[in-house]
């Protein structure tokens, strides 16, 4: 419970708003035998986990070792590395009021209990991203992905989230774009804005492509996901007119309806009319989502966006807890190799390219996700009660997302390897048939892989789908893995099809929520940007402007979506690298801005904490972009592919590579042009931002620090502990506050 000075406490002498720093440090450094024993156990279990997954080469490896390795590493990193960053680089001061305290308005500036905010923040940053990337990267074996997810989050992803959250909190909750403009000047700031906007477009496009691929030719999936729209509308009306504010109640109702929709989907998909009505082409679904995206972004938020968000948050936390419990209870065996045949090559059929750098862009969310910088600045900082809590929420929140990525990896790897490839190889290689898929997958020459057409057909029947061949995008594969784990936990094989569609449903729900919210945020950014030239656009309540900008944003991601859906080469495999590169470039931009801010504060000695992940993200994304732009191999380089198809057309050929018709060839020429151009745009903008940030940092270092843009210091008059569990000194101060000013009806405990 948070203690605040109530209205009646005016003039009363308040207890200190912070635990004395020396006392805190002494507590942290006091090593009692019990503490030593606990941390030694954690270290041993983690070490054991790493040995089992990295060194021991048995037939299979149990999923529980992944959990041990991951959780122990997170705990150690959180306890030792994040406190190091806190002590040396950030130096939060709980005597300063946070924006939530000094600008409290009962709306977006609201001091929120740290544990509640942790859940909030997690629900805002985590979505389908960490569920999809690891599945695609599993092509290279389990170990490269596992190491990157865990080490990446500790040294890069969580660091980025923590720094951005702290700096934004110090600046009244400024957004990343505003901070970039302050720190980098006009050129860098504008580049950061354009980069952010175009990156959002590609992120939304690829996410929707994942949904389309999961729903294509799946009447069950289409029916139940489509029902989420009337369910959300009903919830919206319920909250607005019937029972205002009964969020918890309506979420349970929505959840029950959602389960009903999944069950009903199974019946509908069995009927003839259901199949006729809901078996949709991918292009049709894509257009449906584009229309939906536009309508959702212009409808009032209470009707669709807000209720969908409640439902999505509810499902997110619920399913992730359920999944963690299921993995620990079921403990599936994983028979994929640590390093697959594709780890050392660059011709993987799912994501082409060598391990470096493509593993690091295929898995973005879960290890390092630039998009989080948009949540960690702007939204969450306006809710943080005390500066010291940013470590728990920023660093700790990202560790949880990383754990979600590990669970997705485990679930995807727990299915048969042959099945994995049959599901994820594009239809241009499998011909979309079980025979074609079996033939192709077995021809890859992978050890231990011998998949039969019968096996593929049986699995499809088990999960209640017509076919599971070439269901690319990661979501269906994850759904099969999850269904397999969940049916061992609850329900048995008969429940397999329910769990499969449950997984598809929540992935689609997360993605559509991100699409709704993302389109709206992007529209506001665009209006703001156009507003610098045409001031009228600044007025966000101006209908015409809102519609124009929404149409522009939806048109942007819609065009890329349609391009991906109709891509003769497969879509996901050509676009996903662009998604990862874009997300990591945004991370590089966020880290670069943090570097400039920290340098301004004059902490030169500890700048490596930012410089190391920044350099890594920059090298990975710039190298990956260079491959995508300059590689002479058509499977990797967009322009090489472009030229090859253009030459083939010029030579009068009517089919080439995977494109069987002149139209398909023309489509490849067009698509690779767009993809290649986007690659060039992203990398150019990112280089501009990074260079201007490094120059700004250098100027600050030479001057020994410069006056910053932090908000003025306002003394805090509230107190709350900083971490999940309060330390003895924190508890003591907390009860002192409780004695003086009493407790309030704040959220929390």
């Amino acid at each position, binding site marked *: 419970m948070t203690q605040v000075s*109530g209205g009646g406490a005016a003039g009363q002498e308040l207890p200190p708003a912070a635990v004395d720093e020396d006392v805190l440090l002494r507590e942290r450094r006091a090593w009692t035998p019990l503490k030593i024993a606990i941390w030694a156990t954690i270290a041993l279990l983690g070490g054991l986990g790493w040995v089992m997954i990295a060194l021991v080469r048995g037939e299979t490896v149990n999923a529980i070792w992944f959990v041990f390795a991951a959780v122990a590493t997170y705990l150690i990193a959180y306890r030792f590395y994040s406190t190091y960053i806190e002590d040396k680089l950030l130096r939060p001061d709980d005597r300063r009021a946070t924006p939530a305290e000094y600008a409290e308005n009962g709306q977006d500036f609201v001091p929120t209990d740290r544990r509640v905010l942790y859940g909030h923040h997690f629900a805002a940053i985590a979505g389908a991203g960490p569920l999809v990337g690891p599945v695609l990267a599993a092509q290279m074996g389990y170990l490269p992905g596992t190491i990157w997810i865990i080490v990446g989050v500790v040294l890069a992803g969580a660091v980025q989230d923590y720094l951005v959250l702290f700096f934004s909190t110090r600046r009244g909750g400024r957004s990343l774009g505003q901070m970039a403009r302050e720190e980098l000047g006009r050129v860098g700031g504008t580049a950061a804005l354009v980069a952010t906007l175009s990156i959002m477009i590609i992120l939304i496009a690829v996410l929707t492509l994942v949904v389309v691929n999961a729903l294509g030719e799946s009447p069950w999936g289409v029916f139940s996901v489509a029902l989420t729209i009337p369910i959300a509308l009903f919830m919206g009306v319920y909250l607005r007119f019937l029972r205002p504010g009964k969020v918890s109640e309506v979420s349970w109702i929505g959840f029950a309806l959602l389960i009903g929709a999944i069950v009903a989907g199974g019946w509908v998909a069995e009927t003839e009319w259901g199949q006729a009505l809901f078996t949709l082409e991918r292009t049709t679904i894509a257009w449906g989502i584009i229309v939906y995206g536009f309508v959702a972004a212009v409808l009032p*938020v209470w009707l669709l966006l807000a209720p969908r968000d409640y439902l999505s948050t509810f499902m997110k936390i619920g399913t992730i807890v359920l999944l963690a419990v299921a993995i620990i209870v079921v403990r599936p065996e994983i028979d994929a190799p640590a390093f697959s045949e594709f780890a050392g090559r660059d011709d993987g059929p799912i994501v082409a390219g060598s391990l470096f750098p493509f593993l690091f862009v295929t898995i973005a969310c879960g290890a390092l996700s630039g998009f989080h910088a948009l949540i960690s600045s702007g939204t969450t900082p306006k809710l943080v009660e005390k500066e010291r809590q940013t470590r728990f929420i920023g660093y700790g929140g990202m560790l949880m997302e990383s754990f979600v990525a590990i669970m997705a990896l485990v679930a995807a790897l727990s299915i048969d390897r042959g099945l994995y490839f049959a599901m994820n190889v594009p239809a241009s290689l499998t011909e979309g048939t079980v025979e074609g898929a079996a033939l192709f997958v077995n021809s890859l020459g992978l050890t231990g892989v011998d998949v039969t057409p019968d096996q593929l057909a049986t699995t499809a029947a088990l999960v209640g789908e017509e076919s599971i061949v070439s269901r690319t995008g990661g979501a269906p594969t994850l759904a099969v893995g999850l269904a397999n784990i969940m049916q061992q936990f609850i329900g048995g094989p008969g429940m397999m099809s329910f769990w499969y569609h449950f997984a598809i449903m929540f992935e689609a729900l997360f993605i559509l929520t991100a699409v709704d919210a*993302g389109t709206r945020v992007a529209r506001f950014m665009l209006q703001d940007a156009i507003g610098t030239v045409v001031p009228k656009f600044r007025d966000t309540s101006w209908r015409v402007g809102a519609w124009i900008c929404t149409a522009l944003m939806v048109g942007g991601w819609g065009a890329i979506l349609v391009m991906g859906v109709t891509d003769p080469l497969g879509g996901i495999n050509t676009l996903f690298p662009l998604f990862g590169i874009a997300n990591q470039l945004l991370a590089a931009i966020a880290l670069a801005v943090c570097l400039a801010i920290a340098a301004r504060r004059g902490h030169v000695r500890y700048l490596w904490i930012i410089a190391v992940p920044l350099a890594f993200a920059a090298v990975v994304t710039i190298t990956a972009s260079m491959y995508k732009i300059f590689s002479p191999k058509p499977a990797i380089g967009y322009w090489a592919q472009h030229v090859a198809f253009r030459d083939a057309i010029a030579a009068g050929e009517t089919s080439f590579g995977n494109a069987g018709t002149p139209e398909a060839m023309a489509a490849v020429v067009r698509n690779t042009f767009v993809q290649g151009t986007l690659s060039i745009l992203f990398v150019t903008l990112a280089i501009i931002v990074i260079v201007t940030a490094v120059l700004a940092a250098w100027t600050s270092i030479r001057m020994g620090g410069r006056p910053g843009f932090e908000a003025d210091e306002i003394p805090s008059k509230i107190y709350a502990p900083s971490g999940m569990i309060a330390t003895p000194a924190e508890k003591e101060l907390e009860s002192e506050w409780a004695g003086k000013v009493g407790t309030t009806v704040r959220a929390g405990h």
Partner: protein
Amino acid sequence: MADLVDRLRSLNRFWRGVIGADKYDRYLDHHRRAGHTHPPMTEREYWRARTEHQERNPQGRCC
């Protein structure tokens, strides 16, 4: 037993906080502490104001 009820109660409070169900209670608390003399908004009014606020201040959801 009382301990268990307590725990469940705090879990429920936590859950309500995370999904945002306790926003009106917190607004009332804020209103009381701010020492305003005008009466607070009713629950219905509050939620209308809240969605109007969301309309103008969109918040991102990540992938």
